[in-house]
């Protein structure tokens, strides 16, 4: 005769207790109630004080100001903007400027950072010392110091447009910023763009085809001549058939300033240089740590298989290092984006400077404006770190590096 297994006891209350009070049970629930009460009291104090203070200082509240006329000019606008536009427009102009300087900074920081990291790992003694010196020098000086240095000591002391420095014809560097030829679209532009896209897609197809071939037959196809031909030939053909895609409008000196061409304002140039060189030093450390994290045995195993040093790096070391590098690298990109707010010190019109700077001093609505500004940066951070945590979970599931 078998004894029927006893039913487990009803665990509803246990579960409830666990959900509400964690491991410590009902006592913890009381503790949390006190905690919430204290938070509520602090919140009440803040709201009550803010209300009283705003009333006393006659400051309006609410987001109504966003549709008011801004009435101030902005020195760099990538979307149409005039002084009669609203504060909402100012916000958008600043946001676009932030994103632009962040994108430019990230681009150059990545290139410089990887170069410096490889230099530090180079077997050449001199190169590794120079790269190490660069990293130490740049990392140990405040970013704001560097921004001010580039802006005040380098770009502002450049000669006036009349005596501007020109290394290559058409590019002028002066204390009014960097003037470059401006590409102006012609009738062949659309055909040219289509040709470029088609060439890129063709190259990707070629690559996957050669991969499949390699895995099936064990022999690598030589595809790079075809890829090169595609990349150069298709756009060239488009240019011949449909006409030139764009012409360059050359800047010319007229009176005391340049006319024509595209001008990068000195604030932008200084900020982009400072942000990219500063972040590059951190990226170099991240990349170096990532490459060093790959065990020496991996390199040796590759050599034992008869792979050349280059193929070992490309096929074995870099893919493993990338897994380690990518999360802190995104972190550095995020830092660069947040650090672009330091532009307020030199007056580059990015989000913080035009919105939390000028708009705040004009309207005086500190709470709303700072909340919006902080919210934008917070959103960028949270979205990026969310994507990163999904990525690292996937990496962890696939065995990790």
């Amino acid at each position: 005769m078998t004894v029927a297994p006893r039913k487990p006891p009803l665990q509803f209350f246990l579960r409830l207790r666990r959900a509400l009070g964690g491991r410590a049970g009902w006592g913890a629930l009381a503790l949390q109630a006190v905690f919430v009460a204290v938070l509520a009291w602090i919140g009440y104090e803040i709201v009550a004080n803010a209300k009283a203070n705003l009333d006393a200082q006659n400051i309006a509240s609410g987001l109504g100001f966003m549709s008011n006329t801004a009435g101030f000019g902005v020195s760099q606008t990538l979307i149409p903007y005039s002084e009669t536009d609203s504060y909402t427009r100012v916000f958008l102009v600043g946001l676009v400027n932030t994103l632009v300087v962040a994108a430019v900074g990230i681009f150059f920081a990545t290139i410089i950072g990887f170069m410096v990291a490889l230099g530090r790992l180079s077997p050449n003694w001199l190169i590794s010392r120079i790269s190490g010196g660069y990293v130490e020098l740049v990392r140990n000086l405040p970013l704001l110091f560097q921004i001010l240095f580039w802006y005040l000591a380098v770009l502002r002391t450049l000669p006036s447009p009349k005596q501007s420095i020109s290394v290559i014809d058409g590019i002028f560097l002066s204390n009014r910023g960097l003037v470059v030829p401006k590409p102006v679209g012609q009738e062949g532009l659309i055909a040219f763009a289509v040709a470029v896209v088609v060439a890129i897609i063709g190259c990707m197809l070629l690559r996957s085809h050669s991969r499949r071939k390699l895995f099936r037959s064990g022999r690598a196809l030589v595809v790079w001549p075809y890829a090169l031909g595609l990349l150069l030939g298709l756009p060239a053909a488009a240019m011949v058939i449909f006409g030139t895609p764009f012409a360059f409008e050359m800047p010319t000196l007229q009176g005391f300033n340049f006319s024509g061409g595209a001008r990068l304002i000195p604030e932008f140039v200084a900020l982009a240089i400072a942000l990219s060189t500063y972040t590059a030093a951190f990226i170099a450390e991240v990349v170096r740590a990532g490459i060093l994290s790959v065990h020496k045995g991996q390199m040796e195993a590759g050599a034992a298989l008869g792979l050349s040093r280059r193929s070992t790096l490309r096929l074995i070391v870099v893919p493993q290092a990338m897994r380690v590098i990518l999360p802190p690298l995104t972190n550095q990109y995020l830092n660069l984006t947040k650090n672009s707010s330091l532009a307020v010190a030199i007056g580059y019109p990015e989000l913080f400077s035009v919105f939390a700077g000028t708009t705040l001093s004009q309207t005086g609505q500190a709470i709303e404006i700072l909340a919006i500004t902080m919210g934008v940066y917070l959103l960028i951070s949270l979205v990026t770190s969310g994507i990163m945590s999904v990525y690292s979970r996937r990496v962890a599931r696939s065995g990790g590096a």
Partner: protein
Amino acid sequence: MSVRPAPSFIRAALVPERHAPIRTTSLARVLWIRLFSSPSNALLTVTGAALLWFVLVPAVRFFFVDAVWEGQNRTSCLVTDTSQSIGACWPFVNAKITQFIYGFYPEPERWRVNLTFLLAAILLLPLLIPRLPAKRLNASLFFIAFPVAAFFLLHGGGITGFGVSWTAGILSSLADSVGNAGRQLAASGEAGEFGSILRLLGNAVASIGDALNWLASPLSSLRDRLQSSGQPVWYDFGCTAAIVSLLLFLFSGGFRAGWGALLASLTTFVGIGLVIAAMRLDRGGLPVVDTRLWGGLLVTLVVSVTGIVSSIPIGIALALGRRSTLPLIRMFSIAFIEFWRGVPLITVLFFATYMLPLFLPGNFTVDGLVRVLIGIALFAGAYNAEVIRGGLAAIPNGQAEAAHALGLSYWKTTGLIVMPQAVRHVIPGLVNSFIALFKDTSLVSIVALFDLLGSLRASFADPAWATPTTLFTGFAFTGLIYFAFCFSMSRYSLFVEHRLNAHRRT
């Protein structure tokens, strides 16, 4: 039956043999291998040498060979004839150095700043050398006693009461605030659907406030009696010392085991009393120097040291909160940490400068420097929380489990078992976050405080020293100060890390 596919990757021929390793004994040989072993390597070396040549030679010429070393104003740093080139203008630094270090701190009072720097150095150096004893005493002196003493030294001013008066003041204002909140709530419950519930809740909160007031009443009456006496500070000090010592004595075991605590408490109070007497805090103390006059390196150091000292407790609390099993506390900690880590520091400084005054009662004005310090403490606290959490996570679970098995409570487990071990792992990270904070203090110049960088910028505006080379000279000098601080700290952090990992090396 399936036919096995032919294996793909098989070499037809053997890989050619490599050369035997080269003997790398002589220095010349090593240099040759590391610099000129192959044509590409030689090319790299030449490029690097050229780069160094084009950077170092002009720099040396500018800072030393062509530099101007003596002069009274800008004329000595200007080009007199076009053939000669002028380098760094060191007299500019000489003229502005007091501004770079003290800001506008009044000259007769500067000994106070120097004394503070000296005290900090005396207390900090033994703390940094791992071999020296009495770390606990040293740390408590540096992290608790020193900031208080430094405040009275740098800012000046005295005290009118001590522990009893302060506690009574805080308690009664807390009770008033809670009572007011309750009455407001009850009043707002007059209209609306949930009126009765709101009124009940409001009355309950108000009665909590009244109860607090009632609890504080003995302390308040004691305070009033002390304040009306001739020597309020000293009587109050005596009362506080007696109450605190007695409580410590009773709580740590009474006549059975409490003598150590009693002795420690009495010694501490004697020390505090000596400091009060020495600085004459009971008679107004040193003349007050408004924080608007502070500047230069002084502000940079005050902001960064206060930031790190006040952010460590915040960081510990947040890190423990984030590891806690209580859902609400964990959620609050995560939200708090991620919020401050997700926004740039400059928005935090603006928040502290423009928003914080709105959140405080109208009659309560906070000094500009203190506002910035609050913002920086919160910001750095969130970053330190992650550093400390990393240290806590490095301690194996078995340690906490063993402590639980021995019957230790959560706080004892944390305080006696986990934290002391985690601290060792945390120190390099904390030093790194201190470096970051030290560099970030330069941002306070944006919210109108004159730290080192702000003083530098202000000094550029002086027309008496406006020369083409002033900018480079100023940046070089301040850069040197920043670099010296940050570089030495980063080396120290590496040293501690190396020591911590000693067991992993063979």
